């Protein structure tokens, strides 16, 4: 029978919502147990949150000062050790999971399944290739541990609240390297909803024209309580920071409502949004590819349309 170890992602003492999505994927394996592993210098608050996620059997914590920051070189040897006895190790396919999971796989000497969209059987998965333009079915060798990253946009978060999984401390005394050091994390400070888990997202593209003009996108997003994203073109042009990029190499998101404003819709961008519930496109070019995937399209000047939308919202 399968036993799945899910690696918790957390920052600043808070569990990242992607963890509960990875737990959903773990539940789809239909194994006998799902344990969540929290590596931190102070794991208690994160572990308490993880213990509430439906379907979690145990939360395992590893408390070491080296775990204060998520450095793959530090975490991977501990995860590889903790993986002993598990058939599967899952991590969310975020920059955290993408960084650490392959390092774990290599230490275990196994392949990794990246960006799992669906679990067909305990060792059979679907995943996207070519920016999501093809979906492959892959079979992992059942004689080896499966290391996989979970494409968070394909999974809803496992419910949280009623579960009270036991929290157990693990002592993992593997030697850790000193060759990699955390220096700092520069986070954009924002009171807006988190782009990766928001139910509504408003994104701006090259059509917005400048960093200053992007204020119109922020203002509209705030009015409807949406997170703000951007196309690669807008980020490359310096209109907004890298963490706002949506697409093949940025964030893959699945909000209920996605509004693409001044975005033409390169396939690399569409990859990041195709699981959205409803897509709205506003663009002055009626031939833009974004309209091919939009549920609602409106052709026109965004600087005229956005104030009209705000007026219509009252």
């Amino acid at each position, binding site marked *: 029978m399968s036993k799945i170890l899910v690696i918790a992602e957390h920052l600043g003492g808070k569990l990242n919502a992607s963890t509960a999505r990875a737990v959903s994927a773990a539940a789809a394996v239909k194994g006998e147990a799902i344990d969540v592993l929290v590596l931190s210098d102070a794991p208690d608050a994160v572990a308490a949150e993880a213990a509430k996620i439906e379907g979690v059997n145990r939360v395992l914590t590893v408390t070491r000062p080296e775990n204060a920051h998520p450095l793959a070189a530090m975490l991977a040897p501990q995860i590889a050790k903790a993986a002993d006895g598990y058939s599967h190790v899952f991590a969310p396919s975020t920059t955290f999971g993408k960084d650490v999971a392959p390092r774990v796989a*290599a230490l275990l000497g196994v392949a990794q399944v990246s960006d799992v969209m669906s679990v067909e059987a305990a060792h059979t998965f679907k995943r996207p290739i070519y920016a999501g333009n*093809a979906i492959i079915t892959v079979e992992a060798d059942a004689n080896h541990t499966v290391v996989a990253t979970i494409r968070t946009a394909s999974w809803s978060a496992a419910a949280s609240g009623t579960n009270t999984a036991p929290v157990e401390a693990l002592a993992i005394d593997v030697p850790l390297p000193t060759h990699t050091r955390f220096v700092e*994390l520069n986070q954009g400070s924002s009171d807006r909803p988190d782009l990766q888990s928001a139910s509504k997202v408003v994104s701006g593209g090259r059509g917005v024209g400048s960093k200053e003009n992007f204020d119109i996108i922020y203002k509209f997003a705030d009015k409807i309580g949406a997170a703000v994203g951007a196309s690669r073109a807008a980020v490359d042009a310096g209109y907004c920071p890298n963490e706002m990029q949506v697409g093949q190499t940025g964030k893959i998101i699945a909000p209920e409502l996605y509004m693409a404003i001044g975005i033409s819709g390169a396939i690399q961008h569409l990859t990041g949004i195709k699981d959205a519930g409803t897509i709205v496109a506003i663009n002055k070019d009626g031939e833009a590819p974004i309209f091919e995937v939009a549920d609602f399209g*409106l052709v026109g000047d965004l600087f005229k349309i956005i104030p009209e939308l705000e007026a*219509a919202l009252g």
Partner: protein
Amino acid sequence: MKILVGYKRVVDYNVRIQVKPDGSGVVTDGVKLSANPFDDIALEEALRLREKGVAEEVIVVGIGPANLTAHLRNGLAMGANRAIHVTTEDAVQPLTAARVFLKLIEKEQPGLVILGKQAIDDDANQTGQMLAALWDRPQATFAGKVEIADGKATVTREVDAGLEVIEAELPAVITTDLRLNEPRFIKLPDIMKAKSKPIDLIEFGSLGVEAHDHLKTTHYAAPAKRSKGVMVKDAAELVAALKQKGLL
């Protein structure tokens, strides 16, 4: 210092991928092939480090069939000193690629290995991290800025939360993100010069790398298509439609 750069050939990013009707693969016959865009960025970064005097030699590495040589010539034309072509007719999965790189590292003793963060064909995003693990050296993935001084790399990484800065002692593995640099264009005289640059051919089998693939791809399918929606005439109609769906 030597820098090893992974230089993979992939279906050009502008090609619209078609899945074969029998689900056995994607159509690659007659399709334009180019360098993986992240690998062009990796090579550009290595060349800039050489131009700054940080490195003396830049070596591009490719793993693939005999006709990969022409692709490696492009890397030489862009400015690499020499190329290593590990020849194999078989597709190579990331763990095997990492093991190949480890063998080449043992031979070449580079101070830095720069790879693209992912190849845009299999989108695996694994090889650099796997190599760093096997080599037991630092990894700095998704690099947006790289500075090398005093035997260490200070790398700004593009992560979901923002920009993370880490220090990695050399030798180390760096994987590139999109905004690290803008690769240069190849000029005609450089193509001529590249013809005389050396390409070492190494038979895959001679490396002693275990090539058992744990993953088998059993089926290819086209993604579910989103159906085309409706065009609305103005902002009021759009707001009304979204309100009706309970989205606003």
